[in-house]
């Protein structure tokens, strides 16, 4: 967007920005889901990651025999900004018909009981240790490490072409008893599979 604006003459650019703002406002009015339309959040990495985390839930199927908790909890460790973004997003956006909430985890023990775990770059410690507790449990683990998948996570954020993409480990998903939509798989930059 910035590229478009900069490649246009200033007057035209200003007008386009104005039009864009108007369109965003229109989008807010028309659509209840105003969060993804928020331009400020969209362009921060944390916001993108928070939105993606929220959206991942839509493409993943948790095993049905699991005793259904009354709430859908996303536990976030090592990235407060993402947690904050999620805390603003989730109250208005239920996941699978359940009220969703974010839990900020400071210790590994705090991760227990969540349906989704996100371990950010701010986490200092061995990822394997952190995930040992949720192994073989129906928990979608999302990381943002160079070798997150090797450490046992299911989805791992990567940087590609200045964009946030993700890779998926089908082995990890199988171990956790999760089914990942082929649509999501189609978007993955890499799929780890035996």
């Amino acid at each position, binding site marked *: 967007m910035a590229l478009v604006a900069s490649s246009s003459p200033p007057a035209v650019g200003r007008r386009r920005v104005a039009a*864009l703002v108007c369109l965003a406002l229109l989008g807010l009015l028309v659509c209840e889901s105003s969060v*993804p339309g928020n331009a400020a959040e969209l362009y921060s990495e944390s916001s993108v990651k928070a939105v993606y985390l929220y959206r991942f839930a839509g493409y993943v199927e948790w095993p049905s025999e699991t005793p259904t908790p009354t709430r859908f909890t996303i536990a976030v460790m090592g990235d407060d900004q993402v947690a904050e973004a999620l805390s603003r997003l989730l109250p208005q956006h239920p996941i699978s018909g359940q009220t969703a909430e974010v839990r900020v985890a400071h210790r590994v023990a705090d991760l227990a009981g969540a349906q989704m775990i996100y371990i950010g770059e701010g986490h200092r410690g061995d990822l394997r240790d952190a995930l040992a507790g949720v192994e073989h449990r129906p928990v979608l683990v999302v990381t943002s490490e160079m070798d997150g998948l090797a450490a046992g996570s299911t989805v791992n954020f990567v940087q590609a072409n200045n964009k946030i*993409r993700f890779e998926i480990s089908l082995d990890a998903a199988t171990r956790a008893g999760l089914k990942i939509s082929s649509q999501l798989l189609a978007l993955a930059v890499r799929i780890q599979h035996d």
Partner: protein
Amino acid sequence: MTSSVRRIARWLWPVKAQGVRHSMRGKLMWVVVFTTTTALLLAGGATLLRDLDRYRTSQSAELLTEADILSLATAPALAFDDRETATRILTGLRTRPAVLAAALYDTQGSLFAQYARGNGAILLAERVGPPGLRVIANRIELTKTIADKGEWLGTIYLVSAYDVSGALRDYARILALVAVLSLAVALVLSTLLQRALTAPLDAMANVARQVIGQRDYSLRASKTTQDEVGVVVEAFNSMLGEVQDRTRALEATNSALAESDKRKDIFIATLAHELRNPLAPLRIAGRLLASPALTPAQLEETRAIIGRQTSHMALLLDDLLDASRITRGALQLKKDVVDLADCVAAAVEAAKPLFDRKRHRLSVLAAAEPIVLEADPVRLTQIITNLLTNAGKYTDPGGEISLRTQVQDRFALVSVRDSGIGLAPEAIPKLFEMFSQVQGAGTRSEGGLGIGLALAKGLVTLHGGRIEAHSEGLGRGSEFRVYLPRTVRASGAPEGNPDDGEVKSASTRRVLVVDDNRDAADGLALFLRIAGHEVAVAYNASDALSVADRTQPQLLLLDIGMPGMNGYELARRIRDRPWSAHSVLVAITGWGQEEDKRRAGQAGFDQHMTKPIDPAAIQTLLHDLDRG
């Protein structure tokens, strides 16, 4: 189009109806072509409109479906901002030729991914347009939001080909094909069906043409249907029948008239000839009388010539007048009780000169007892005379002629047999017609007008009898038989006929003769004076009036056709005189028409006589005056 259809029509219906410029078939064919074409166009137009609407609806629905599928497929790519995947998915539209271009716009309205078919003829906008379905020229554009799980993710824009003209072309091709086939089927069907309609009409038209062309009114159209055409055929046939009957009657009348006309022509020629024949001897006799050196014997001979010739002429004219009277039904019989033998004797006497001249032998075989008839003796004698004269004429000199009278039941039979030229069987039926003379007998003919037998037949019929002709063939003689009804009345002495030559003594009468023809007046006056009457003569009407006033005649013989005052006026004036109360007025005219008689009666005449005046008639008149 028109000419090809005409050619097809010619091929289907070979032209039979000559002289018919616009045949029923052609008209029916055009009706079929016109109605079928109109119906096809209307139905085709309606179907076209409906199909175009359907095409548009189906194209739109297809595009919407496409958009829905694409929305589902590209929603994750939009959700995770994956332009490559989105582009890849859009590229999958290559398998859908109908989709010309596609674009995805993000929630900001910016172009996210795009696809264009072929060399990218369609330029996709950088910015999203308003949502909705639009048909622009030959394209359908659809702009639709993409949402997933209630979350708005972006907008999809699809362009699909909307080939109306192509669809129209296809449709027109199909319509044309269907139209041609329908027309062909309709024409073939109507050909088969219209035969039932046009065949009876054609048949009648053909008959009508033949009737007009050949004037043959015996032709009839056959009636094959019970519908209106059947009624027309019936009416047509009955009109033909009427025309035929009338034509036949007209032709019959025409040929009868022509025949009668021809006979009259021949008759006039014969009449002229017959009247001219006595003129030559009369002329000679006239010159002889002018000669001073005439001996008494020569004078006597001359007188005899004149007598013979004039009586011959008188006979001819009498026959002619009688024939005319019979034809007009104006002849009155003066019936009396007569002895047939008397009439036969008179007839034999009359025919004697001819028989003597031709040296015929006549044998008369009379019945033993006298045959008494109620008849007009003069006419009866005339009948027998005619038969004898006829036999004499058509028999070569020296022939045998026999006359026989006998009684057959209630009839008296008079038969005249000759050894003459005989009659062809086919000639017999026409023998008794007026003016007919046996053809080819002309060389033997002794003259005559060819009315003798017709006259005889007319007179016989008036007497209530019949006449027959018999012959065994040409050259074998002939026999004529006359049957007359016999009176059962007791026979009384037949009354003597008023004699022609002798003037009987009668009481003297005062007579006035008026005629502008001096010879006629003087001749009549001379005859009356010889009979012993006092006769005055006047040559014009005014003289007649003064003479009449002076002499007060008892009998006035007035000519009608006179210059100045005519006979009718003269009669009226005389009737005004008191002295004329007991006078008898007789009109003398050249015409014997009923109208003339009526006028004469109105003018005050008692009687009417036709020229030439028969002295015997005057005699009878005077005789009656004596008695009355």
